[in-house]
């Protein structure tokens, strides 16, 4: 019954998604930065051709995390 009420209340649902999005984006941002640093470190250890592409993908992940954060705060 409570779940039904929750899903039928559009405002409450919107706030729940917003809050979840903000927390998710922050955790995602921390992990993305960590993996970016890790790939940078490993690129120095083992130089491979794919390394720079991996670094670019990690950078894209950081940008995506920032975008999700902004989206959750301002657009949703």
């Amino acid at each position, binding site marked *: 019954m409570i779940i039904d009420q929750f899903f039928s209340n559009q405002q409450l649902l919107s706030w729940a*998604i917003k809050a979840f999005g903000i927390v998710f984006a922050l955790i995602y941002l921390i*992990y993305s930065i960590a*993996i970016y640093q890790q790939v940078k470190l490993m690129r*120095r250890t*083992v*130089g491979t051709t794919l390394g720079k592409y991996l670094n670019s993908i990690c950078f894209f992940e950081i940008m*995506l995390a920032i975008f999700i954060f902004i989206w959750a705060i301002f657009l*949703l």
Partner: protein
Amino acid sequence: MNFNITKHQLFHSFCIAPKDRFDGQNNNEEIILKLRAHPITQVFWILNSFFLLLILIVMDIFLVSILNFSQIVFVNVLCLSWISFYLLSNFSHWYYNVGIITNQRIIDIDFFQLLHKEVTAVMLNKVEDVTSKSSGFLSSFFDFGNVFIQTAGTEANVEFMNVPRPAQVAKAINDLINKKK
């Protein structure tokens, strides 16, 4: 097997004489073999991500009746970014866990969790024993297994886990040791 001609086999998990460089490489040091875990051992996380994608598609069918369009797009972006991160972290974990055999030493580079790196290097003249082990249906069928390199005294031992063609790797190391003697 000829270890002079550059070859990248099994999705770069068995690289013969690659042109790559590594940290601390000497001027006259040449990479003979570069090993990663066999691609078949990575199938589980690839299948997992397909499964997660499938869950997302099924979830979308139910979300249409609950959320509005922008909320559905937002939830989809969240889930897709999570799946992409899962793929990226697993791929980089596989890609940078390498074993390198040069004409001077054997190097094992591991990274376990985020920001944890371990590099073990053993000189060829310190190697006492090389053992290759492969057990189970999958490892026999796809020819992958573990290679254990034991060293003299207090030197660290090196292990290459789930590498392709473990018998060939062990033979290559033994040939190098004999050449050194």
